[in-house]
């Protein structure tokens, strides 16, 4: 159809312009800049003579300290995700299947209410609970169950507790949507065919909610590995994670290039997970390949 009239621009296309600009300015531009900075010797704005280098990445992968930081970040992310899933799944299942409207509203409020408070406030609340002279340790000591306060603050455990509390709603809301769309009659059909309620859950509901489990886990993991406030307050610089390290490199060491390289690594971890997620979902949903 070479003789076809030249296509007139669709007027509706103009409406996506704001979002295109927004994405370009606040997403692609900063990430692009970060990627560029991570392979430069210095800041081209202040230092006129800059050259390409891979030394930031080399430094990261040569020094076991930085590898340890990356691994700690991933470990905290994984544990947070698993705990959030263990807490969030039963809650989401309950919310998706509850018959009473009032009950559903109350559950939803209970899940959402903490999100109305700032992360800093919630983290401080955990500090009063977890510290050596905090509520938990004082209670246990006064009950005579322990003599020395448990080391809850300034440990990975403390960070995970704080992160789980903050990110569990994301897990619950993602899962509730998916579980709510599974026909309850499928479980009944399984029971009718001789499966105990637990077996029916394992055979039917669990596999069908796998997309929600994957999506919720991905979301919580990505948020947990990029969290800054909670690890700093509950870890008290005793536990070093990637976001804290990046902040230090910029604010204390002024090593923007190295900070950018660390940022790219953090981004890559999330990106790899998204790709793995799509693959897994493709396998789960059978023949349908995700384009």
């Amino acid at each position: 159809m070479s003789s076809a009239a030249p296509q007139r621009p669709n007027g509706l296309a103009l409406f996506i312009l704001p979002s295109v600009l927004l994405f370009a300015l606040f997403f692609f531009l900063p990430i692009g800049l970060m990627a560029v900075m991570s392979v430069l010797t210095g800041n081209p704005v202040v230092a006129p003579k800059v050259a390409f280098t891979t030394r930031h990445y080399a430094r990261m992968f040569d020094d076991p300290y930085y590898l340890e930081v990356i691994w700690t970040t991933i470990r905290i992310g994984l544990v947070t995700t698993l705990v959030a899933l263990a807490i969030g799944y039963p809650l989401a299942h309950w919310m998706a299947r509850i018959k009473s409207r009032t009950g559903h509203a109350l559950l939803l409020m209970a899940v959402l209410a903490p999100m109305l408070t700032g992360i800093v406030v919630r983290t401080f609340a955990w500090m009063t609970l977890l510290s050596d002279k905090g509520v938990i340790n004082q209670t246990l000591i006064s009950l005579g169950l322990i003599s020395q306060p448990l080391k809850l603050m300034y440990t990975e455990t403390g960070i995970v507790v704080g992160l789980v509390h903050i990110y569990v709603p994301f897990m619950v809301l993602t899962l509730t949507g998916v579980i709510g769309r599974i026909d309850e009659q499928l479980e009944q059909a399984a029971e009718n065919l001789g499966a105990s309620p637990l077996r029916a859950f394992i055979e039917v509901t669990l596999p069908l909610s796998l997309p929600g489990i994957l999506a919720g886990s991905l979301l919580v993991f990505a948020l947990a590995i990029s969290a800054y406030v909670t690890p700093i307050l509950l870890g008290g610089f005793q536990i070093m994670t990637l976001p804290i390290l990046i902040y230090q490199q910029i604010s204390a060491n002024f090593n923007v290039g190295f900070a950018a390289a660390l940022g790219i690594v953090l981004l890559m971890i999330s990106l790899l997970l998204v790709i793995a997620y799509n693959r897994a979902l493709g396998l789960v949903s059978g023949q349908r390949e995700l384009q």
Partner: protein
Amino acid sequence: MSASIEIAGVSKVYDGGVRAVDAVAMDIRQGEFFSLLGPSGCGKTTTLRMIAGFEIPSAGAIRVDGADITHVPAHKRDMGMVFQNYALFPHRTVAENVAFGLRMRGLDKASIATKVKAALAMVELSGLEDRRPTQLSGGQQQRVALARAIVIAPRVLLCDEPLGALDKKLRQQMQFELKQLQKKLGLTLVFVTHDQEEALAMSDRIAVMNGGRVEQVGTPAEIYNQPTTRFVADFIGDTNIFRGERTTTSAGGPALDVGKGLILALPASIETQGTGVLSVALRPEKIRLSPADGTAASARGVVENTNFLGGAVLYRITLGGGHRVLVQQPNAGTDRLFVPGNGVTLDWTPADLVVLKD
């Protein structure tokens, strides 16, 4: 081995006081095709779900072959069920769906494969083993659901409006096949439907339900020809219902004065001396229609409109006094059709009037 079911005074009251099923009692015989028929909200599905074990009765007992199963959990009842929307497992293939119940019973792989193959052959779905339910048509999904339910050789097969989602042609074909399969396997089958034609065509016996109660239990012919209540007469097929005071004919026989100058002679089986208000039903096809010159007529009227149904013709006729009646006649040829405005005489036998309980 097929079983009999006894439903003894079963009620279901939901939180909030809604009485979905109210003191329902019926006996379903072994190897019987038994339908629960009624409008939506009449309690038929709740009754079925109580038999399946998905709902616990608030009162009464359900017995299978004499054994009380009222509180036995669903997965230990050994019943097959075909759900209204089929409830096929979307993440499993056709063969895996059918194999599910056998797997739960711990059968070995080889005998599962043999039985699945036989069940799929029985519903004529051989060759589709590896498809997913979403890749099948509605009729095929329906057959998979049926195969999945019968492959476990259930004591009872429960069907919740299984043909509701199919178009008319396919529906009739499936009605025929399901009935044939049921007879061949000697299955006790409890079938829930709101479609009276379907119930009449397929069932050995029907329980007509309304407002949580059983109105009448009987064979299709009994339900149609001798409805005992006004609801049953009205719900099953077209019918003319008259209501009036008891009186006597000039000859001294029992009769009913339905007002507007119309007095209906009642069947001779009714006692002559009686008073009070009665309702009677008269099926449209029990009335004979002839041109207005007839002599010994039960009533006279004018054709208001003519519905040509093909094999039969349905007339709406206004009687002299103002009553309106439906009359159905076999199609006896174009030249024998009455058209609106024709004067006609109507004849029926008093014995065809069925006295109803209100």
